[in-house]
């Protein structure tokens, strides 16, 4: 996971994340990224040399930010929400491969608080929302040693969501 990683997402879903950030502004939005990750499969099932993406987002599962006390600068997804997102993913033959949230009036880069609370392997998409308008969108993965995030490339694909 220390290697450079790339995330594929349709323009339509990328737009939905940005719209969710604008909708909840000035509060943070959050949701699950449902998709497929070929690196999670055993080596033999991956199809050597195939041009399949390592990770592709195929559906979103928007969630309600549970942080009533400070929703402008924190978001929280409970274990029950995670189980709901995993169930929704399974029903579509997908898995939860990451999470998205917004940074109202702040840049689209992870905070110390993001790093402290992050899990490895998941993709963390952050969209910056400035004065209510969505701006940059970035994706990050926590390094295995938990010391920092590495940026992940976002490839916008022109294909319909499942």
């Amino acid at each position, binding site marked *: *996971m220390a290697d450079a990683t790339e995330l594929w997402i349709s323009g339509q879903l990328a737009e939905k994340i940005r719209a969710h950030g604008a909708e909840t502004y000035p509060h*943070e939005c*959050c949701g699950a990224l449902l998709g497929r990750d070929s*690196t*999670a499969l*055993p080596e033999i099932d991956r199809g050597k040399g195939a041009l399949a993406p390592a990770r592709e987002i195929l559906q979103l599962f928007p969630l309600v930010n549970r*942080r009533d006390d*400070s929703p402008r*600068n*924190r*978001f*929280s*997804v*409970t*274990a029950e*929400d*995670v*189980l709901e997102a995993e169930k929704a993913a399974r029903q579509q033959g997908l*898995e*939860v*491969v990451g*999470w998205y*949230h917004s*940074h*109202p009036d*702040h*840049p689209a*880069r*992870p*905070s*110390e*608080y*993001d790093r*402290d*609370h*992050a*899990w*490895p*392997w*998941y993709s*963390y998409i952050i969209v910056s929302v400035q004065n209510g308008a969505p701006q940059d969108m970035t994706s990050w993965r926590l390094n*295995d*040693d*938990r010391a920092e995030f590495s940026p992940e490339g976002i490839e916008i694909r022109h294909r319909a969501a499942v």
Partner: protein
Amino acid sequence: MTVKVMIPSPLRPFAGKRDSAEFSARTVGEALGHLTTQFGELRKHLFTEDGKLRSFVNVYVNDEDIRYLAKENTPTKDGDTISIIPSIAGGCIQFCHSERSEESALAFEIDHRIGS
């Protein structure tokens, strides 16, 4: 007594890509101890440096959250399933604080220059 520990997706790369593992254990803490002994890389993602479960790591025995039982001393019986369920959190809070600190430092510097 044998218990099954379910491993969530983000931790599977550190557990030989397995989604579960079975151990003989009398408590939840013992089962998690066996898990992190077998897969040492899991430890830092589950526990803080002083050995406490991280706040965003939720552990259930069957359908019960161990926070409402006896935490890591929760006894287990043969056939129990222990699930590790992530909760997700983040936000720009510390980012905001550090930016404010930078702004304050800059303001101080400017005031200082004006004053000098």
